[in-house]
């Protein structure tokens, strides 16, 4: 299916009231009642909706970040860590993974995420932080060699 209205719109030359209104009514096509078809009513609700969607673009980023933080923290907590601690170690060791990738690893590639958690534990034990037992088995860092 090819959407032809942009082509037709471009072809109509000069100021044209029909196309001017068509542009707004295209955005109100999924509204309920007179907001859908009556221009005078539709324009108000379209402006309202557009201002919402402008704000929502920033909100979406914030919400996703909160969700990713929750998920990564949940993944970390299974290994007795939290994301604040893990973040510091990943920064120091040059593991350049962002929140989106980390939460994806925690869900879809859990063994890779476990490796990152063990790395965090090992590095912390090296610095003498948060550990009585010493580094977890199976992790070799440069400090040990």
């Amino acid at each position, binding site marked *: *299916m090819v959407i032809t209205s942009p082509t037709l719109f*471009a072809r109509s030359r000069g100021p044209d009231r029909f196309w001017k209104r068509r542009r707004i009514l295209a955005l109100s096509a999924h509204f309920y009642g007179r907001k859908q078809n009556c221009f005078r009513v539709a324009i108000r609700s379209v402006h309202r909706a557009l201002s919402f*969607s402008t704000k929502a673009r920033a909100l979406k980023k914030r919400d996703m970040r909160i969700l990713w933080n929750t998920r990564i923290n949940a*993944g970390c907590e*299974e290994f007795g860590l939290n994301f604040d601690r893990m973040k510091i170690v990943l920064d120091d060791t040059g593991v350049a993974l962002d929140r989106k990738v980390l939460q994806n690893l*925690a869900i*879809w590639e*859990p*063994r890779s995420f476990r490796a990152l958690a063990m790395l965090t534990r090992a590095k912390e034990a090296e610095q003498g932080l948060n550990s009585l037992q010493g580094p977890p088995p199976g992790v070799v860092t440069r400090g040990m060699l």
Partner: protein
Amino acid sequence: MCLLWNLPKMSSRTWSLFWGSRFVKTPLQNGIGRYVQQLQRITLKFCKTHGGSQGMRDYIEKELIHFAKENPGVVVYVKPRRHRSPCLKAEYLNGGEEYISMHRLPADDIVRWMAYLRGRSGYPTDRIRKDQHTDHPSIQGPWTPWLHRDPQTNVAQYPNEDLSCVEVMGRSATEELREMFKKQKLVSSYKRSVES
């Protein structure tokens, strides 16, 4: 060919209400290892006299022969009809059809539309939700609540004292003092034994 630049931005959700959305997909993994031409038939309909078909007539005179040569797998029909505007009709391997009006379009544009129809899969064009897609999102297997657990917890009897008590992260001051006291006692008893 998108002239939507002067329209206010419609959210993808609103767009999907009317036009739908899907994931990136190719029919039968086309293009991985081998390519099967999805376009099977294309019909060019035009009028021999009307001005609206001028571009189409130019195209048929100059360009169509090249298209047919380059695409031996595509059947090309040319269908003149009186006093009707020109159009392209494409039919695909999966049974899909596509119809595009070519009214008053120059030959250059028709070249591009032909290339567009040739590359299509025959499935309807929807908004693509993501740039990438996989049927196998996990190599290691997705997370389960049992994955990172100590298997000991599966056979433990609940309530369990060891699994319940708080994890010791450091030593308390009392424990430090007792240790110091023990060492002191050892030293003093050693001294006493040396003296006696």
